[in-house]
């Protein structure tokens, strides 16, 4: 990220992204030269699985895939469940629209994930790992295949790794474009060749996962942290971050911000530092309005949250969540109602349909939002939105439905006046909801040629020849004929 100035770089610490853009991901020697596979060697020759798990627990590493479950604890569960066969799964489904951290790690540093999976295998007692990756990521798939092949040639995957007697191999499984397959039970069904529908937990994958065997599922970024933690120690890792959230988090910074791209910052960095120092502020000198985190499961943070340290707990407390790390910055031109509708649109499309609250409830939520954006909403719709949203959260089967109303509830909490102006005044102050815009004649541009008045099918344009004309908004049917006729750009929508 050379385009960032030195000062800005100070705010960033690269752990998960340590090798991205620095090594050639298709050459295993370059990874090894940067201490690659040393952690695996350490774990295989100098630590017992219990010691490694204790080290992970002490480091405080939590899952980066969304829920933030402590990694060491998860491994411990899988280890303690006795079985003839166990599996290690890497969740590389990355479904959050507008996020691409995991892909960048897989493309830029595939060996870090392979090494970590082997370490997990050793800890839980598994000899087989799968990476569940979206078919839409062809480059990441190609790089992973090369990396697996090279690791096998070096004896870092396969039988009797580094002469330790430990066997471990990795294969790929492909997703096929279903957001819900990022949910771990759905992911496992998809790996088994089924429709990717979630099932109730318990049983957790650590008890009964792939093929009914204990399975440990971790996210790509979680795994990428593992080798470094083993080499540098739990104390080092836990010295970075906040009380409850250790280490760093990668965010995909996008939207109305000057420096878009991936950033990796210590947990506890404030939104202000991310947006105004690292991100270089809002594009075109506009005013910051909100930052959306957690994708379709999350919510938005506003001006009043700018100085809140970003960690798992604070985000949840403020009605959002960490999610996988998408961060979309919005300015005064963005309409929060239509943003909420955008996410609902996504959820409705991606709901697997298994349970009614999510399948039907989200559809109704979406219809309500659609009506509001079209200017047909009523004040009572706002109460309906909130009630329905709460019910969906409480009664849905999986995390998708349980979190899908968040974008609506959070924008309602933070921008109540915007919802009100949509339903009461039928106005969209940011000018996004086109149905709420009105045709208007700009006095300075109008030469009074009367072309518009003659074209208007309902005769709602008045004005003398060579005098500025005026549209009566009460009778205008918004057909657009006037705008088309005017040769002087005098008719505008606002």
């Amino acid at each position: 990220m050379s385009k960032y100035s030195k000062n800005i770089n100070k705010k960033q610490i690269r752990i998960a992204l340590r090798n991205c853009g620095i090594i050639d991901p298709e050459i295993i020697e370059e990874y090894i030269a940067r201490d690659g596979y040393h952690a695996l060697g350490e774990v295989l020759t100098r630590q017992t699985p219990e010691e490694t798990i204790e080290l992970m627990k002490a480091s405080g590493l939590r899952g980066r895939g969304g829920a933030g479950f402590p990694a060491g604890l998860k491994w411990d569960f899988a280890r303690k469940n006795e079985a003839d066969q166990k599996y290690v799964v890497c969740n590389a489904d990355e479904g959050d629209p507008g996020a691409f951290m995991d892909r960048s790690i897989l493309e830029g540093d595939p060996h870090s994930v392979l090494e970590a999976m082997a370490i997990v295998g050793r800890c839980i007692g598994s000899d087989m790992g799968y990476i569940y990756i979206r078919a839409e990521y062809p480059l990441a798939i190609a790089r992973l295949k090369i990396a697996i092949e090279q690791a096998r040639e070096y004896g870092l995957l396969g039988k009797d790794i580094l002469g330790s007697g430990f066997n471990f191999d990795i294969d790929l499984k492909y997703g096929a474009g279903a957001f819900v397959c990022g949910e771990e039970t759905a992911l496992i069904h998809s790996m088994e060749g089924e429709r990717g529908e979630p099932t109730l937990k318990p049983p957790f994958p650590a008890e009964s996962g792939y093929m009914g065997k204990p399975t440990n599922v971790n996210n790509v970024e979680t795994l990428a942290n593992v080798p470094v933690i083993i080499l540098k120690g739990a104390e080092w890792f836990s010295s970075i971050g906040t009380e409850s959230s250790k280490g760093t988090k990668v965010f995909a910074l996008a939207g109305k911000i000057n420096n878009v791209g991936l950033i990796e910052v210590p947990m506890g960095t404030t939104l202000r530092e991310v947006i105004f120092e690292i991100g270089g502020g809002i594009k075109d000198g506009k005013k910051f309005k909100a930052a959306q985190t957690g994708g379709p499961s999350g919510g938005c943070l506003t001006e009043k949250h700018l100085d809140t340290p970003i960690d798992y707990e604070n985000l949840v407390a403020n009605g959002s969540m960490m999610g996988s790390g998408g961060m979309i910055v919005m300015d005064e031109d963005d309409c929060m109602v239509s943003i909420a509708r955008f996410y609902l649109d996504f959820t409705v499309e991606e709901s697997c349909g298994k349970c009614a609250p999510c399948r039907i409830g989200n559809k109704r939520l979406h219809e309500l939002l659609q009506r509001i954006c079209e200017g047909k909403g009523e004040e009572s719709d706002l109460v309906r939105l909130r009630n329905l949203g709460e019910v969906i959260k409480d009664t849905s089967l999986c995390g998708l439905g349980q979190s899908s109303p968040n974008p609506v509830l959070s924008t309602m909490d933070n921008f109540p006046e915007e919802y009100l102006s949509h339903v009461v005044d039928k106005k969209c102050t940011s000018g996004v909801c086109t149905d709420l815009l009105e045709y208007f004649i700009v006095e300075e541009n109008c030469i009074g040629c009367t072309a518009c008045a003659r074209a208007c099918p309902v005769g709602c344009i008045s004005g003398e020849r060579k005098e500025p004309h005026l549209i009566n908004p009460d009778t205008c049917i918004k057909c657009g004929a006037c705008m088309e006729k005017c040769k002087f750009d005098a008719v505008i929508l606002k």
Partner: protein
Amino acid sequence: MSSVKIELRQDQVDKIHSICDSFGNQEGELINVLHKCQSTFGYLPAEVQEVISEKMEMPAAKVYGVVTFYSFFTMIPKGKHPISICTGTACYVRGAETVLNEFKKQLEIEVGETCEDGIFSLSCLRCVGACGLAPVVQVGDKTYGRVAPDDVKGIIEAYTG
């Protein structure tokens, strides 16, 4: 299901059989089989699904159920130049919807459809990882960044002109 009935040639049936065999005809490999068949035929018409179901000894309904669950699988042939509009969040906030509407208008098709002459098809993607260039449009392998509705005509003409 797709409205046009197609007749598979024997060599095509053989090809499907060999794909199923290469995955050991195992039920758990269905998604991999479908990926392979789609990359071979370009899409997964009902006729191809039937051959898979017979060969792998599973109900056609199950194959159909899986094909329709995943958005990556399509039962309609893609156009010669498939157009994909990114509707990820970053692209959305920078105006992807207006670009999409312009494509629909110009091509006179909806998302998921293919033009009658088979030249273009229209689909939506969720984040192609080029958020810095939002809004992003892909035509085949080519990526267009910072696309405005006014650019749409030119993009289409580049493939028809």
